[in-house]
Structures are given as C-alpha cells and as structure tokens.
C-alpha cells in the first residue's frame, strides 16, 4: 500500500486540519503528563514516605482527603500538573465528542447546538475543576 502524505501548504490550514493537529498534540501532552505524573508521584513518595496511591488520590480529589505532602512547593507542583492534565484532556475530549456527533448526526442545526453545548460544558467544567483543585 502506498502512503499518502501532504504538506500543510498543499493541504491548507483549515479548521479540520487545525483540530486534527490540536488533537494529536494534546494527546502527546497527555502521555507526557501521565509519564511525568507517575515518575513525579513515585519520587514524592520516596521523599516523603507517603503511599504513591494516596498521593495520586489526593492529587485528583484534593477536596476529599487532607494534604499528605508536607512542603508547600510539592502541593503547588502537583496541583498545577493535575490542572494541566484536566485542561488538556478537556480540550482533547471536546473535539473527539464533536467528531463522533458530526459523524452520526447530519442535521446542521443539531450539529451547531451540539457544538455550542459541548464547548460551553467543557469551559464550565474546566473552570469548576481548576477552582476546586486550587482552593481545596
């Protein structure tokens, strides 16, 4: 099978091409953050003696359990990483959900409504997540 590759110049940088690239780059960022999160969590576990699972649990549910890490900088780094992950995952998911929706629903109005609802939902959910993680 012959491979077909087109340069950005020939393909043209339209909305679809941009979102395709955005989805690829966000997923690479997510893999990077997952790897960094696991390695960072293991290092914090080694430094503080706190169970790795407890660090991960607190990182994603800071409003559910007391802060297990003693030093302030650790708390800030972990929170920033989780916020970055949630935002990147949200951006990646928005395009994915809309792509599935657009494939199965051809009505223009339904597509437009879905786009507005999903993007609004993603923005609100991101704001809630960032607020809770920062203030817990």
């Amino acid at each position: 099978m012959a491979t077909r590759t087109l340069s950005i110049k020939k393909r043209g940088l339209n909305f679809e091409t941009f979102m395709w690239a955005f989805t690829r780059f966000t997923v690479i960022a997510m893999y990077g953050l997952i790897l960094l999160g696991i390695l960072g969590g293991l290092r914090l576990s080694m430094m503080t003696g706190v169970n790795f699972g407890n660090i991960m649990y607190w990182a994603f549910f800071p409003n559910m359990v007391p802060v297990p890490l003693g030093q302030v900088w650790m708390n800030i780094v972990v929170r920033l990483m989780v916020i970055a992950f949630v935002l990147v995952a949200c951006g990646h998911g928005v395009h994915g959900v809309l792509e599935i929706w657009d494939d199965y629903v051809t009505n223009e109005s339904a597509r437009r409504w879905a786009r507005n609802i999903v993007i609004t939902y993603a923005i609100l959910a991101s704001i809630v997540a960032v607020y809770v993680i920062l203030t817990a």
Partner: protein
Amino acid sequence: MGLKRNVSLSTALGYKGQGPYLTFILHRIGGSALFILFTVYILSLLGVRSMHALMSNWLFQVVFLVFALFHAINGLRITILDLFPKLIEHFRIAINIEWVVYILVAGFALFVVLRTAFGG
C-alpha cells in the same frame, strides 16, 4: 445519510476493515466512556457524594479501565502512525502489537482492581 443508515453493528464489524474497524469503533466507545468519566469526576469534585461512591465502585472501575486503556493504547498507535506516515504500511502489525500490549496492561489492571475488591 447519518441517521438513515441501516447497517447493524454486527454487520459493520464484518466489513472488510475487520480488525482496523474494530479498533476504530472501540476507540469511539472508549472516548465516549471517558467523556462520561470526566463528567462523573467533575461532579465528584463538586462534592456530589454519589458520584464519588460511583467512582469507588469496582464494577465502574472495571468498565472504565477496559475502555479507557483501549482508548489510550489505540490512541498511541494512531499518533505514532500519524507522526511517522511511512509506518502506515505496517498498520496491521501495529494493531496486533497493540492488542498484545492492551491485553497485558488491561489484564494487570483488572487483576489489581478485582483483587482489591474481593480481597486475597
């Protein structure tokens, strides 16, 4: 076309794409499952106890892991093939490798979740 298509899932899976089509459709199901998980997570962060209890439920974790891990591993294959187009010629081999990795990772994850849930 869209809503008027009359091809069932079983017929679609028999389409000549077969293995690749199966990964395509599982990737979509996995993505949708992750979207639901994201919603449960946000509600959990908001303090909705039932959502937090749902996330702690072993059955929810099993379903989530089965689909989420497939989505992640299949996404990695797609990304690698997209970034290195010359590898597309070997996409069937890539899918076979993906299944082996998925079975190993998902098997380990399920073992841990079920062992924790039922003790032992």
